[in-house]
């Protein structure tokens, strides 16, 4: 190859890697750094409060009850053999009336732990181990020791960082909630004055949107033509809003463009058609809200191919009063996350181009409360106890080392606030996010912890 050709090819390669600088919504010029690791990130908050004993430690009943049976009930995510006795976490044997008798078949031939990196001892280092503290820390990289329910995070969410500093569109960013309970609908943008709704991600709680409330109030909505009908509606509404906008008061929208609004409406319409015709892509077992949410999450990913998606689960929180139900839901969350990962590998553009991160929002106590379930097994709450601060992080995808374990019980590595800088790192924006100065002091990219 002559020198001129070599230089030309090198320049093209560099341009392809770095990307063309462009103006951001903030007015700044942004050139994506060359260290972009993947074009899509899916962050699953394995939420509801997951004890270390039934997950990473694989103690099954021996870490909680008087039964001395160990084993791994998350065999899609973690490497380890399932329990051989006292099986109560699967699907029910209705014929013989045995709860949870049939373990769900694994979806993945190779557990995600072997495909990626496991941080087995991560800490929820500050504040109370409450669901919304945990979820908020996951999406914002900061802790909220005094925040109440129905409050937005004080620090920006990952969606806002990406929209403001990397120019992501609103439909590039999705927060997919298991429900609308508590602060879940508020996880898509913060109350921070320099970020906030202007840079928020879209939110959907699909089991509500496509469940009974949505079926009553959204399903079969009139299909206005996006150009003619909506064109006129937008013109008249735009005139009305122009007269009112000077006061800065508006319906809390998320700055989706008209095309994005059309796309969201069309997504809702098409998904309702799938619901009616039974064509939803659901996990093979889909008997709880988490699994249905993960099924809908696949629909969101297929339709929008978001750059950043956060999905939160919740069903394992039954552990407050039903340990058997908790085990079943832990097993189902594992099943659902494996399904999600498998489906991602079938989505053009996301296949081999998506990093998935899985992390509980916090753990649960070591000591039980006084409630016993149908198997006479004790239940567990989540307080600020050390065990409720133990959690793990699992990361898998292109550019992520395979079969690597980082940290141990005596050498914990990782913090609940790490996910935001990690996602920023994946998109080559870590320094920008750090320099905003709004992350917790402990927060670091997981790539820097390896």
């Amino acid at each position, binding site marked *: 190859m002559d020198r001129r050709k070599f230089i030309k090819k090198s320049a093209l390669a560099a341009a392809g890697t770095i990307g063309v600088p462009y103006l951001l919504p903030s007015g700044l010029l942004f050139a994506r750094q060359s260290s972009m690791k993947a074009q899509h990130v899916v962050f699953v908050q394995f939420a509801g409060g997951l004890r270390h004993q039934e997950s990473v430690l694989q103690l099954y009943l021996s870490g909680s009850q008087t039964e001395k049976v160990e084993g791994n009930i998350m065999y899609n995510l973690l490497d380890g053999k399932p329990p051989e006795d006292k099986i109560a976490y699967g699907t029910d044997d209705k014929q013989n009336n045995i709860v949870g008798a049939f373990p769900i078949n694994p979806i993945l031939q190779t557990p995600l732990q072997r495909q990626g990196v496991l941080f087995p001892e991560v800490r929820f280092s500050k504040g109370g181990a409450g669901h919304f503290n945990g979820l908020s820390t996951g999406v914002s990289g900061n802790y909220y020791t005094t925040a109440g329910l129905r409050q937005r995070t004080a620090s920006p969410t990952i969606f806002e960082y990406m929209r403001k500093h990397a120019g992501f569109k609103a439909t590039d960013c999705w927060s997919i909630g298991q429900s609308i309970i508590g602060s879940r609908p508020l996880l898509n943008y913060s109350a921070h004055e320099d970020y906030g709704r202007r840079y928020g991600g879209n939110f959907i709680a699909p089991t509500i949107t496509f469940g009974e409330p949505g079926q009553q109030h959204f399903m079969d*909505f009139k299909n206005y033509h996006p150009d003619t009908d909506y064109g006129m509606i937008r013109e008249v509404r735009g005139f009305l809003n122009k007269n009112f906008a000077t006061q800065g008061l508006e319906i809390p929208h998320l700055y989706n463009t008209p095309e994005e609004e059309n796309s969201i409406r069309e997504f809702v319409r098409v998904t309702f058609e799938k619901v009616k015709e039974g064509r939803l892509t659901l996990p093979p077992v889909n008997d709880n809200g988490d699994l249905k949410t993960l099924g809908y999450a696949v629909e969101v990913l297929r339709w929008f191919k978001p750059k950043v998606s956060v999905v939160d689960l919740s069903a394992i929180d039954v552990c407050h009063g039903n340990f058997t139900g908790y085990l079943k839901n832990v097993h189902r969350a594992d099943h659902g996350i494996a399904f999600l990962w498998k489906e991602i590998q079938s989505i053009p553009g996301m296949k081999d181009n998506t990093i998935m991160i899985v992390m509980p929002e916090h753990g649960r106590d070591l000591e039980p409360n006084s409630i016993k379930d149908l198997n006479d097994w004790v239940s567990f709450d989540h307080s600020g106890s050390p065990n409720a601060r133990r959690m793990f992080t699992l990361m898998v995808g292109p550019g992520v080392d395979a079969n690597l374990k980082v940290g141990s019980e005596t050498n914990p590595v990782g913090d609940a606030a790490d996910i935001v800088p990690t996602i920023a790192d994946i998109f080559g924006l870590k320094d920008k996010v750090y320099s905003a100065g709004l992350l917790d002091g402990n927060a670091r990219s997981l790539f820097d912890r390896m």
Partner: protein
Amino acid sequence: MLGAVCAIMLTFSNCQKDFYVYEIEDQTILPVNSQKIKPKSVPQYISILYTNFFQKAISPNSMLQAQQAIESIGDKQVAFDILLSKYMNDSRVILPSLESMQKDPEAFIRNTYRRFLVREPTEAELNWMLNYIKSRPNVTPEHFYFAFGTCNEHFHY
């Protein structure tokens, strides 16, 4: 002599004119919609929207479900648009006829402002709307009602 001086003073004082100075207090001129500074809550908005389109109150159960549906979508403009599109597909929705709008567009515009925004249109607004009706042969009362029902001013009080 004294009497003459007093008489002259009285004469002049009686002839003096009173001067009244009329002043105008400074007034801040605000747009006609300036009193609306608070967002309606979602239940308030749904309740008013429903009443405007069905001429009756929404039931408590239906309200609760509508509220949940709205909360399940982050972009409230999109959520309200879908909700109203659903209402528009309901045969019970009450809209002015196209004929009535075309027969007396000014009355239609004034009534629409009163119904949704609880005020009269300004002359500029009225003219814009009348020109819009004139220049868009395909525009219907439904388009106007949709736009008014989902505009920012309607969401505030």
